[in-house]
């Protein structure tokens, strides 16, 4: 099969994966919407009553039959909230809205500017999660791959053995617990870092340089914690993948052919080990945007996890909950889709046109 013959097949593969990704996303959104429907119904019923009562209160002149008026207003709001429609329709509509990125209005929660727009609220919190966790993901992925590669080259050495031990240990560390220890030691005992505080420095109040300094000072400890906890596992997995390839017969064959060691490592080995390494790095980067809820709470870091927690516990704000859940699901499904495409692109063995179960 030459390159040209390959084209239609890879387009077919691309189209298949794309359609598949969209179908999965639609179904998962429907499932999410259905899961929250009872909760949403409860909240909306209460809200309809509240709004009706408020309307009644705000009238300059009270109507003769206040109760009848109230009933009417409640009916009006129930209709507006589509509570008169059957449940499956509501599930369908809310899923449709979310899928068309129309996240709607929050019940109670507001963005700093006072807006109740769910998209605006999410966009306030998302950048902070990206700032901490995606930065961390970039650092630990790069560091992990570099160290893992180094360890694989000196497999069996002290560095390698230490890395295995560290990798297993780090994989069993709960990140938020390490955060608590870090706060205990570095914030309160040694005083090197500022105490966790959900307040974020404001750009308009500080100069740019001060703002940047304040942000860096604030994020240093959480960032170091995330990198510390996740880097070992990444390095270890990379190391295992690369040593696995290094033991393969074709590496020995390449050496026998007189291929220079540098080319053996950075050519044959890395190219073969690349698909899983690259795809898992992409997944890590995308999934980092969903944040880590409990670590965000421990570090008082107002990101996506923090937002979801507030939406559930303090406000029971279903539009926000659904919006955040959808984004989390989307990040995963989209990440998986991208990873699949890249895997297919990097590894000629992936059978183009198949469902891609590997």
């Amino acid at each position, binding site marked *: *099969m*030459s*390159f040209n013959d390959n084209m239609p097949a890879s387009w077919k593969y691309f189209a298949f994966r794309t359609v598949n990704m969209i179908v999965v996303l639609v179904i998962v959104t429907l499932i999410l919407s259905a899961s929250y429907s009872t909760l949403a119904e409860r909240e909306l019923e209460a809200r309809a009553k509240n709004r009706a009562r408020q309307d009644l209160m705000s009238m300059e002149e009270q109507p003769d039959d206040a109760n009848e008026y109230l009933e009417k207003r409640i009916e009006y709001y129930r209709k507006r909230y589509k509570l008169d429609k059957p449940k499956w329709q509501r599930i369908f509509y809310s899923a449709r809205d979310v899928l068309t990125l129309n996240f709607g209005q929050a019940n109670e929660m507001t963005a700093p500017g006072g807006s109740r727009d769910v998209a605006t609220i999410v966009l306030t919190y998302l950048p902070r999660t990206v700032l901490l966790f995606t930065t961390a993901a970039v650092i630990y992925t790069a560091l992990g791959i570099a160290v893992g590669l180094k360890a694989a080259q000196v497999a069996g050495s002290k560095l390698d053995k230490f890395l295995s031990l560290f990798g297993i240990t780090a994989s069993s560390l709960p990140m938020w617990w390490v955060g608590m220890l870090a706060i205990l030691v570095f914030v309160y005992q040694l005083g090197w870092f500022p105490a966790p505080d959900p307040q974020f420095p404001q750009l308009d109040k500080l100069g740019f340089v001060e703002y940047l300094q304040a942000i860096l000072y604030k994020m240093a400890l959480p960032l170091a914690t995330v990198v510390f906890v996740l880097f070992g596992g990444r390095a270890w997995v990379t190391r295992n993948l690369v040593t696995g390839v290094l033991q*393969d*017969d*074709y*590496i*020995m*064959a*390449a*050496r*026998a*052919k*007189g*291929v*220079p060691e540098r*080319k053996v490592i950075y050519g*044959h080995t890395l*190219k*073969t080990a*690349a698909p899983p390494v690259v795809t898992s790095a992409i997944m890590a980067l995308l999934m980092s945007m969903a944040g880590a809820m409990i670590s965000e709470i421990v570090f008082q870091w107002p990101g996506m996890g923090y937002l979801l927690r507030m939406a559930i516990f303090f406000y029971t704000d279903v539009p926000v909950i659904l919006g955040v859940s959808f984004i989390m699901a989307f990040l995963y499904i989209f990440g998986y889709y991208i990873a699949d495409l890249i895997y297919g692109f*990097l*590894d*000629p*063995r992936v059978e183009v046109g198949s469902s891609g179960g590997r």
Partner: protein
Amino acid sequence: MADNTVLKVDELSTHYLTSDGEVMALDDASFELDRGSSIGIAGESGCGKSTLAFSLLKQVQPPGEIMSGSIDLDGIEVTELSEKEARRKIRWKRISMVFQGAMEIMTPVYTVGHQMREPLKYHKDITGKEARDICEKYLKMVNLDRSIFDRYPHELSGGQKQRVVIATALLLEPDIVIFDEPTTALDVVVEARIMNDLKRLRRELDISMLFITHDLSILAEVSDNLAIMYAGWIVELGDANKIYKDPKHPYTEKLMAAIPDIRTDIDRLEYIPGVPPNLVNPPSGCRFHPRCHKAMEVCREMEPETYTVDGVEVKCHLYSEDESISKSQEATYETAYEEEAASESYEGEKGKEVSEGLEEVAEDEVMEE
């Protein structure tokens, strides 16, 4: 060294320094290979055949190490080369290797062409169209279509892959090509075709060949000389026809008897009872004595020397000129043979195991088709 000799291996020992102890995979191996001739190296798996091959390339996998001896490749002392020199001077240029057919020897993410061109690029600095032309020439030589050049390894059949590997091994026209179980994992028809191709190529290209296999029936067709290995030792070395007709060493005798011969009716296949020894702690004296049907008392105590009998070198006490050795008392200790005889049920089990093993092999071969 005679002018015609291209390779002279002298008392070569390669050991693996593992955490369990020193594995003496190859001990005091000596043989010569003439230009244009071929030698077959046979023995059970784990006898040191592959270690010998990798020692010749100076590419023993760690923790393996060449401990002593010399490898004289047309005037170059291979054992003294640094890694870099070995890579530049001998690997593929002077000695190339066709790896076991059962192994995955092509990097899955590179095309066939990419991998074939590598030796040209790194040894002769030939790239681009010129390199492609050379590769296609050799692909044709092994009866492959030139379109194979652009394919990925997973798109090829087992036989095609093995032909690509052979073509790659011939690419730099080396002095010696090592064939390490070249046709294992291939079905019989493909095997026969490839062996015929090899015979033809040897005539055409005038290269020396070193065949490594556990399958003596293949060697009969392609090798001039034969070396039989057991537990890291070369136990018999000489002209292939002589050894086939009249095996001297008891181990060779048994190996020859184990070749299934379709022309004769046999009740049961010969096999050698017992298992190959652990090379960390090999048996004392002769390493074969625990499984030998002609074992003598002396075999347990003394390592045999190598004797020349009818132009064939044999490492066995039976051929000692000292009669006190060659005709010493029969073994009083139990060998695998007597153990087997001692218990019928044991024999039954053993026999079953082996025949099952053979069935498996047969089945594998069929599956490959």
